[in-house]
């Protein structure tokens, strides 16, 4: 379970987001909000990539502030618009992250098959389309034994087959993992059942269901 308490984030003197208390249990949660509302800021804070005021913890034990390394080992983040060094290959990136996140060898192979990346896994990133970049980001996001996976706009730029595979992958893992998914699509347009829907409005996270 992911817990957020007394969360507050501002850029300079401009407040972006405040969350008094919020818990996310295992399962898939949808986060929506207009452009610039603070979805990515929230995701980056949860991923331990951005500084913020307040507390974010896993199972109320592993705190991002007090045990940042142990916490981050269990939280994976897929960016909305991923970029990688153009001279590396998806395989280079995957093997680097997989070793770090202690992912079994078979996991990489399974994910490559599921996301249909076999044809370009050994090509340099500079040759990738935006969909291929997104798949690379998703591959890195599922590596290891994550307990939270943050998917920022995962359904844009990927093809219909990958969308289906990704939905199945989320459904398969949602019993042991908390998924926070941000998207501009409405829930009925997506092949997923969300445990909760949230909106970011007026610098606050509001529950939608």
């Amino acid at each position, binding site marked *: 379970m992911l817990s957020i308490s007394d969360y507050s984030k501002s*850029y300079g003197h401009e407040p972006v987001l405040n969350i008094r208390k919020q818990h996310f249990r295992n399962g898939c949660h949808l986060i929506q909000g207009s452009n610039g509302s603070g979805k990515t800021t929230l995701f980056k804070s949860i991923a331990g990539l951005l500084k913020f005021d307040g507390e974010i913890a896993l199972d109320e034990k592993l705190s991002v502030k007090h045990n940042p390394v142990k916490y981050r080992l269990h939280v994976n983040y897929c960016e909305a618009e991923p970029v990688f060094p153009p001279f*590396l290959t998806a395989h280079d990136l995957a093997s680097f992250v997989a*070793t770090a996140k202690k992912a079994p060898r078979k996991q990489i192979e399974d994910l490559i098959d599921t996301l249909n990346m076999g044809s370009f896994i050994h090509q340099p990133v500079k040759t990738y389309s935006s969909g291929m970049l997104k798949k690379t980001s998703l591959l890195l996001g599922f590596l290891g034994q994550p307990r939270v996976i943050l998917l920022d706009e995962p359904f844009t730029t990927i093809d219909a087959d990958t969308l289906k595979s990704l939905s199945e992958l989320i459904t398969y893992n949602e019993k042991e993992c908390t998924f926070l998914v941000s998207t501009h699509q409405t829930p009925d347009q997506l092949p997923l059942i969300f445990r909760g829907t949230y909106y970011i409005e007026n610098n606050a996270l509001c529950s939608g269901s």
Partner: protein
Amino acid sequence: MRHVSILLQTVAKQFYIQNSGFFLLLLFFGIGFLSGKEHVAIASSVAQSPMLLLYTMIGWSIYLWATFRFSLEAFSSKENLWIRNVIFYSSREQWNILLTMQAALSAPIIAYGAFTGIFMFKYHNWINLGTLLSYICIGSVLPVYLYRKHLAQPISNTRPNRLKTAINKWIATPAWLWPLSNLLHTRLWLYLATKALSIAVLIAFQVIDDIQVYDWRWQAIGMLLVSMANITLILELFKFHKQSVPWMINMPLSGIKRVIIQWSGILLLMLPEIWVLIRYFPSERSAELLLSLIIYGLCIGLSLFASFFIFSSEAEDALKKYFYFFISLFLLSLFGVPVILTSLLLFAFTFTVHILYYRVNLD
């Protein structure tokens, strides 16, 4: 080892590519201006004097600081967020990976340190040798310790303060350096090969020159060949202006300002040849000839650059045109037309193009 190689490619290699201008300058200075004996003399002095060693270490510390800042920026950049996973490797692996990366970044210091260390050993100056070894060890280990600390923490997003902004503005690449900076980043090997060729030709002409046998025309023809050898690099500079910053060329800048921005690129491009010419120019020849040859070389470079504005470099007869241009200048020199007069003609052509035909068609 593959992971070390990935990090070396992503950080160390990019550091050398981004600072290739500085390293080239260092090479020109180190190899072009200082002879082997002078290097030995400097290293011997550093080996024997604690004060000189201290000054050297201050210089090295500035370099180390630059590598450290570069690495931190690389670790925090959007495209390298995956590097932050390094913190999940075992402590030993982290030290292995990051220490190798830092050693690659500090390679010039380690290499020069080793060179100086040989002389310290030779002169039995153990205190200096110990200081040097301690400095290199601390200079390698301390950044790695700080990298690990940095990678474990979230990325700071605090706004830069005014002082930082002012410093950034001060050290930002000025517009007149953009073309050359781009050339060094994108076509480094072409640049090195061309410079090696033109400098070799220039040195050959200086070595063969004999005032009893040849008059000033020998030097003029040499300078013509050297300047023409740079044609591909000048074309690259033009392409940068045309493709990357056409808006800058079309901006309503004053003629002088535009000319300074575009010509400074050519001047900087020809600087290595000018240095070599000054260094190897036969002492029997007059200083006036040296000056007029420098002006001649620059004017050829400038007129080649200007010509791309009016003749398409992709046209089928482009090669023929530039061959005729070369032959014309060759004949002018051969028939004794003073290089300063030819330079004036070329400069007039260049100036006219930059005032009247400079606009780039954005369609």
